[in-house]
């Protein structure tokens, strides 16, 4: 039976405890993702449904934006300042913008994914990784839809495709891993410091011009060129062009990008998981 009044001796401070083991945390992270997979599914579905309901064009926006940008930059880089990229410029630009758009819009959703779901974060428990991860998945669906006009462009320019196309899933995987890693860091950063959201807008624009989206940054050369060479997004976007447009195997820079992405994801996810329990206190 439960007892009666219990006299508790209250000490003034608890014993110090060591941080839980890294291994236990990793196991918890993976187990939780499995346990809560239905939540990830439903959250992703929610955001897709909402976009479809709230906007007239729905997924059309995912296609329109890169098309408009391609048209604009095609005029600039074929008429105003002609640029030789080794393939029809619209193909080069559209492929780059498509891949970049996935990255940028996934991150844009991720940054505010925790702060715009305040009620859920502060009142109900499920792994908070689900917010930025579902943001990435929603953008991935847009990415898939926007692939359709690329296929049309490829048919129009009669681009030959062959065995290297089999590497496309690997390229997408590396891209998703890298995006998720950055998304986790940004979502967490914006929760603790709301400046991150504004800083992000500035950074993402600069980052685009530092990546081979509209022109090959490899041509920059010198010390700045070496610095730009460290940008994993260039390796990823060039890999898309290799397998889709050049019928060539991705260059070793993709392997480097893959390694960086995997390491970054491990660190980002671990840091995210460890600070998860401070989220509700911070909102």
């Amino acid at each position, binding site marked *: 039976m*439960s*007892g*009666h*009044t*219990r006299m*508790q001796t*209250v*000490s003034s*401070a*608890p*014993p*110090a*405890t*060591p*941080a839980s083991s890294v291994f236990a945390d990793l196991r918890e992270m993976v187990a939780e993702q499995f346990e809560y997979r*239905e*939540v990830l*599914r*439903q*959250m992703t*579905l*929610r955001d897709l*449904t*909402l976009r479809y*309901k*709230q906007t007239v064009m729905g997924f059309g926006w995912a296609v329109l934006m890169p098309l408009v940008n391609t048209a604009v930059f095609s005029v600039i880089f074929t008429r105003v300042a002609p640029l030789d990229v080794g393939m029809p410029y619209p193909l080069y630009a559209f492929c780059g913008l498509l891949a970049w758009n996935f990255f940028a819009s996934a991150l844009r959703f991720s940054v505010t994914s925790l702060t715009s779901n305040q*009620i*859920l974060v*502060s*009142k*109900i*428990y*499920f792994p908070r990784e689900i917010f930025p991860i579902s943001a990435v998945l929603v953008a991935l669906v847009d990415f898939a839809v926007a692939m359709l006009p690329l296929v049309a462009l490829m048919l129009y320019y009669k681009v030959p495709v062959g065995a290297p196309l089999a590497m496309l899933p690997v390229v997408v995987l590396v891209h998703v891993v890298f995006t998720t890693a950055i998304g986790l860091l940004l979502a*967490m*950063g914006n929760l*603790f*410091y709301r*400046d*991150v959201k504004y*800083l992000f807008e500035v950074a993402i624009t600069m980052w685009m011009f530092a990546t081979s989206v509209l022109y090959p940054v490899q041509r920059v050369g010198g010390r700045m060129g070496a610095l730009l060479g460290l940008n994993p997004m260039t390796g990823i976007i060039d890999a898309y062009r290799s397998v889709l447009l050049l019928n060539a195997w991705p260059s070793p820079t993709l392997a480097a990008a893959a390694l960086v992405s995997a390491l970054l994801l491990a660190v980002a996810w*671990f*840091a995210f998981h*460890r*600070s998860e*329990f*401070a989220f*509700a*206190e911070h909102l």
Partner: protein
Amino acid sequence: MASPSVIVEHVWKKFRRGERHDTLRDLVPSLMRRAFRPRPASLRPEEFWALRDLSFTVSPGEALGVIGPNGAGKSTLLKMLSRILRPTTGRMVLKGRVGSLIEVAAAFHPDLTGRENVYLQGAIMGMRRAEIARKFDDIVAFSGIEEFIDTPVKRYSSGMNARLGFSIAAHLDPDVLLVDEVLSVGDAGFQQQCVERMRQLIARGTPIVFVSHNLPAVLQLCTRVMVVDHGTVLFDGEPAAGVAEYRRVPWARKAAAVEHETRDIRIGRVQLLDEQHEDAAVFAASSRLTVRIGYEARRPIRGHFAVDIYSADGVYCAGINSRMDRRDFGVLEGAGVVDLAFPRLALLPGCYVISVGILDANGLGPLDVQHRAYPFSVASDERDLGVVHLERAWRHESYASVAAGASAAGGLE
């Protein structure tokens, strides 16, 4: 008794008071600290312990009521049990699926339909899609909003929202249930539904942790009560005694005093006394109960005293006031006490709660009131049903021949 479903061992929780002045410059170092350093046990000046060394267990079949003043740490405890917050140190184990009647509609998105929200909220509560699909019709039927299930939730009234959310939570079949003041939302019918559902789960042996200020509800539902103050357990045991303990602790009066500082007269100490004029929480049926109401008048004033008795499930059993009893205490000055004695308490066994008030000279406007602040229970082996014990006498008289004649007459017509 089965092994505990909820185990809380030496749990401490640290919070920071005041505003944070974090800058972006601190971001990286603080994240690294958070991620890799052991959790510090020491307290910085702006920090305080919201919970200190809390330990308890809840076993199947137990319904634990957690009561205490605002800021005692009740909500913090509940948030930790539902895993929103993590203890600074200590261990917390909940076995099986944890259901909560907290924020039952929190995941609802206004632009999604009721149907879509059921799947979303259901998943967040821990249900598989197949399980939600199987229970979907029951959930909708229970909520009573079948007609509107394909309407966006933004067109729902708050009551419909709560009904649908509660209905999902009610179909979760949890191994442990957490409840936070759920009885304060929704209309009376909905509240009754909540209570019924909790009763069912208790009857089934599901352990429950119920955090509430609603003392009658706690008395009605809980098999055990824990009084928490300043993050520590003051009492853990039998409900009526726990509620009595809660009442005895000085903060209840302190809080009231702050609120009523400006009143001309205010209720001071209120005691429930037994035949020996001792403070008591449990009274034998038909014994003497005296309600002793202390008062403190800031200026001479005329006033009347009122006492209301409610049963734990909210039935208004008796309303008594000195004006209706044509009792005049004259002008009240300084401090004093008024005793209201019930020589033979005619209440049946159960839990009750008393409201105390001081009314103005006309017996109308309240000068100071303490609603449902003083609980007590009545114990006996009485078999009556209801709330009152009525003095009675049975008599039997037989009219056998007349009755037969009447029946015969009826048959002839």
